[in-house]
């Protein structure tokens, strides 16, 4: 037994020295630990949706919801509801909406951030991998693991794969720069925060310009008639949720600058958005129809700095409740 304890002691010391040295090195270079998004983290929130004890508000969509909606403000302003963040960076939400429609236990409110592209059928499956993961892979065991991993990621910088042994070796070999310093962070409830003081906002603009240049200045888009015809399927999903007493609200978030020009050119509102409510039977809200939302400051033309989240969320709730009380 003495031999076992002595070995364990040496092992703990060796581990503390090696892992501690790496942690100390990167912390001294001003990196901070944080939650890393994953299919498990998404599934954990998806599982919570029907077990909140309150009426759930499912926030689905992409980064414009993930990083803009303040969950605490939602809870305070709408105490009968529990918000659940299911939006995913860079992935439109239709697969999630379809999943919620098929879930007989879901009778809450869906706030779905969407634009013309997100409603185009070619993007409908982008969140399906997450939905499938929840239905086929999510287990009690994974839930417990993810809860402990959340704690570990919140406190240990070395939980980030950029600082792994292999990545460090490859970075050294390739003479690469130090790992990316994220200007976004996430909580274990998947609420995102963007700090625009840590990033150059013109980068996003240049990315969009480069993307546009690939298509000769005009992005390809769907034929309006086909786009509308495809929404017949979405109408069934909306009805399924409404028949259980739930609601679906499609929400076009504020955008500005070049991004706005591109959206207006590719998806002219009269041919697309303005026909959405009739085509799907869902409630709609366009940020352009609410001056305070339309003119909201957007550092990169489509997202909100974390300091503005509470005000933005309050405006969004006001706009939603002004149409139909929640």
């Amino acid at each position, binding site marked *: 037994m003495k031999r076992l304890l002595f070995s364990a002691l040496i092992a703990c010391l*060796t581990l503390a020295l*090696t892992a501690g040295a790496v942690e100390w090195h990167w912390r001294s270079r001003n990196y901070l630990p944080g939650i890393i998004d994953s299919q498990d983290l998404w599934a954990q929130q998806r599982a919570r949706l029907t077990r909140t004890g309150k009426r759930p508000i499912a926030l689905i969509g992409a980064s414009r919801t993930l990083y803009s909606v303040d969950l605490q403000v939602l809870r305070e302003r709408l105490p009968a509801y529990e918000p659940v963040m299911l939006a995913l960076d860079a992935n439109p939400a239709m697969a999630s909406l379809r999943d919620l429609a098929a879930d007989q236990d879901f009778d809450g409110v869906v706030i779905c951030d969407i634009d013309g592209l997100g409603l185009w059928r070619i993007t409908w499956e982008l969140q399906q991998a997450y939905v499938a993961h929840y239905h086929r892979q999510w287990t009690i065991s994974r839930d417990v693991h993810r809860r402990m991993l959340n704690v570990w990621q919140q406190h240990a910088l070395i939980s980030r794969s950029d600082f792994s042994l292999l990545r460090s070796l490859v970075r050294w070999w390739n003479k690469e720069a130090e790992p990316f310093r994220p200007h976004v962070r996430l909580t274990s409830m998947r609420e995102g925060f963007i700090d625009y003081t840590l990033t150059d906002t013109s980068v996003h603009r240049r990315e969009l310009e480069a993307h546009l240049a690939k298509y000769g200045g005009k992005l390809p888009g769907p034929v309006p008639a086909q786009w509308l015809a495809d929404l017949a399927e979405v109408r069934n999903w909306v009805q399924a949720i409404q028949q259980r007493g739930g609601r679906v609200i499609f929400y076009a978030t504020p955008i500005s600058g070049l991004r706005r020009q591109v959206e207006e050119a590719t998806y002219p509102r009269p041919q697309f958005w303005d026909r959405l409510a009739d085509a799907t039977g869902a409630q709609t809200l366009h940020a352009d129809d609410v001056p305070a939302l339309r003119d909201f400051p957007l550092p990169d033309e489509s997202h909100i700095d974390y300091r503005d989240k509470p005000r933005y969320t309050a405006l969004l709730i006001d706009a939603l409740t002004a149409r139909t009380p929640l």
Partner: protein
Amino acid sequence: MQFDSLTFVVFFLALMALYQLPWSWNARKWLLLVASFVFYGAWSPPFLLLLIASASVDWWLSLCIAGSTSPPARRRWLIVSISANLGLLGFFKYGNFLNHNVATLLGALGIDWQAPSFDILLPIGISFYTFQSLSYCIDVYRGQVPVQRSLRDYVLFVAFFPQLVAGPIVRYSVFREQLEQPRRSTADGVFVGISLMLIGLFQKIVLADSVFAPVADTGFVIGAEPGVALAWGATIAFSGQIFCDFAGYSMCAIGCAMMLGFYLPDNFRSPYAAIGFSDFWRRWHISLSSWLRDYLYVPLGGSRGSSLFTARNMMLTMVLGGLWHGAAWTFVAWGAFHGLWLGIERAARAAMPNHAWLQAAPLRWLYGLFTLLVVMWAWVWFRAPDFATASKVHMALLGLGETAHVAVSNEARIAMIAFALLWLTHWLTRSLDLRSALSRLPAWCAGLFWGLLLGAIVLSPGAGRAFIYFQF
């Protein structure tokens, strides 16, 4: 529950604490049974019921076999057991495969039949526990083991959590005495068990998931045209990944059982240092290859006949062994290819007199290298999602691909270096009894070893891939 999850760490620490309490052996067996149910049920509670039902049916059938005095009655009960086990496996694992192939066959005959598609989730470990249970019923039928009259003990044998989901496939003859004689955690058992678990986790988390898997994935993309370098990088990386993933699991299972005072047989013995194909199968997934030998190859007639008859039995065994791994023709091709080489090797041995020069070290080493290359070539079928992808990788390995040479990434270089070190380790430890070697380590050396392994594991955060053999 996976060995490489934080859930398992908490589960196992709690179990070890409870296991040390001064309870009777009966009470501790109940504890192990409940722990095994928690381990499996944490993945899927409904499939836990399937596991219990499957084990209970086999337990009852074994009593029927043992209780029957006439040979025809015994045989009837055995057939029921074999049908039940293979039926269960067939439904969950091969249902869609069978439907799809029947539809294709009928289509070729001009009959248009749409196969019904079932959305069947494969219960984890079903291939392992049905084979374990099946071997018990056959052993009872053969009179090789006494029947187990305690349902609790039998279900514990099948569901014992360290080996439940990915083996080793344990024989009842190995486990029976361990169920009857009270087991305890000992300091030596825990010492070696921790070492084995950490080696297993290092193999899985650091080598398989972190070093090998990302490189292997790049070469087996449907529709891609890999160049020579990418094909070799991916094939070598997958050869490393499949070993470290599976041997890592087995190592964890054996270590975990040792900490509880149980013995599980070795499942891998430096397989990449095998000299010849029969030697490879004595070193790779030993519990499956010995199962196939004893319950399939020998009953088929084994080598008790002409060379052709033996070759047929060998090929059938390897093809079915391939199919055991997955419901796809690529696995059948993998098994058949191994069957072919086993046959060639056997024929060559019979044709060549046993000259002393054949035992010369350089020749043995060269044959070992050739064996490794053929094994790696076969892994392409195992890993590829379809024959078209496998064919492209094979062509690229020979330099006949459509893509010109592309520079090797440093990630691929690291994977190749890691594989070379793994191969060297296999040669150096070819005849080593790992458990015995670990038990002789001085305390400071073991502590340092554990600490470095733990450090590497902690410093390799990643996607947390499932063990490959879970899908089988």
